[in-house]
């Protein structure tokens, strides 16, 4: 599957997503600037992304833990997600995310 990621400068990157891995891990492996300070434990809100172009609605709903953690993220929007909580899968092929401001 592919992930279409827009960085903070507006540059678009098409990166490979591996089934079962989190979108955060894919962004980080591609060298994109997600801090992911807690390493994917849904404990820091530094992998915050906006899921755009209709993809947000296709994702499973945020867990309570993610909703709570998003309180610690900045510039939260209706389509905000923590990318460590989105698991790559074939039905998300082409998912569009934008890395949120630091």
């Amino acid at each position: 599957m592919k992930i279409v990621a827009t960085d903070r400068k507006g540059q678009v990157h098409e990166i490979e997503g591996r089934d079962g891995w989190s979108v955060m891990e894919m962004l980080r492996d591609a060298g994109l600037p997600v801090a992911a300070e807690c390493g994917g434990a849904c404990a820091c809100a530094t992998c915050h992304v906006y899921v755009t172009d209709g993809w947000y609605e296709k994702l499973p709903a945020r867990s309570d833990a993610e909703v709570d953690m998003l309180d610690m993220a900045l510039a939260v929007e209706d389509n905000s997600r923590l990318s460590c909580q989105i698991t790559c899968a074939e039905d998300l092929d082409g998912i569009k995310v934008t890395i949120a401001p630091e």
Partner: protein
Amino acid sequence: MSIETDVAIIGAGPIGLFAVFELGLLDLKAHLVDILDRPGGQCTELYPEKPIYDIPGLPIVTGQELTDKLLEQIKPFNPTFHFSQMAAALSKLEDGRWKLTTDSGTEIVAPVVVIAAGGGSFVPKRPPIAGIEAYEGKSVHYAVRKMEAFRGKNILIAGGGDSALDWTINLAPIASKLTLVHHRDGFRAAQHSVNQMRELAAHGKINFEIASVKALHGDNGQLNAVTLAGADKREWEHACDTFIPFFGLTIKLGPIADFGLNLTENLIGVDTEKFQSTTPGVFAIGDINTYPGKLKLILSGFHEAALMAQAAFHIVKPNEKLRFQYTTSSSSLQKKLGVA
């Protein structure tokens, strides 16, 4: 006044704590500096309740439990902690020792400095509001150090965690007016604090708005209003003279960047024999160092601490011979541990 010791450790996370143990076995005394107000670093700040599965011999342990166990393990060596202080400057003295100065003015003089600072210092997150820097320290604050400074102010607090709730409750009686803004009607805070805040709001002692802060207005660093945006995107101006955002902490390398060490992408390059930086006497262990094959794992940091301690011994006690001993069989080690 300076404190003199054998080793100054920056960072009281798991690796800094275990370094105390390895140094202690070699009779080296340590002082630790940490910007947080308690030990454990990321383990207790970011994921106290999350299980860790890759600590040798502990199939499952939480960040808090690991920290507690390390504290128990190093207890015989009685380290001194300097909490809520940031390591601010490092300078070399004429006698060859190092002087580590914190932002509170504590000075630690030691022949060896060990940087076990993980990703750096935990600092408050700055909300992405244009021009906020101009107000910081004057009318925008990220912490409440002296409550008196907030007496009579028209305060706006933002956030939905324990800090936001606690300070809403504590500052309400002394503020001229206090408003809490949070983007949703739900909180990630102790239930009794949430209840208390709702009680205050119900009695008109504070205002609670479901909104986000979009812009700041004021002159010369003095705030006089902010623009708030509600869930329905409607925007309005809200008068206030003090803004305290609480969006948790993030990690920044901080002053270590100015210690004159050899850095690669905010990591300190070390050798893999001693885990010493290219500056003799300054070691780096745990997530903050880099070398070929480095893995950012707690267990790697433990190994690095053990080898660092061997090298540190020779710097602190250049004329003494170091004998390698096992805790299982050495009565002198067991005596140090208080078990013999």
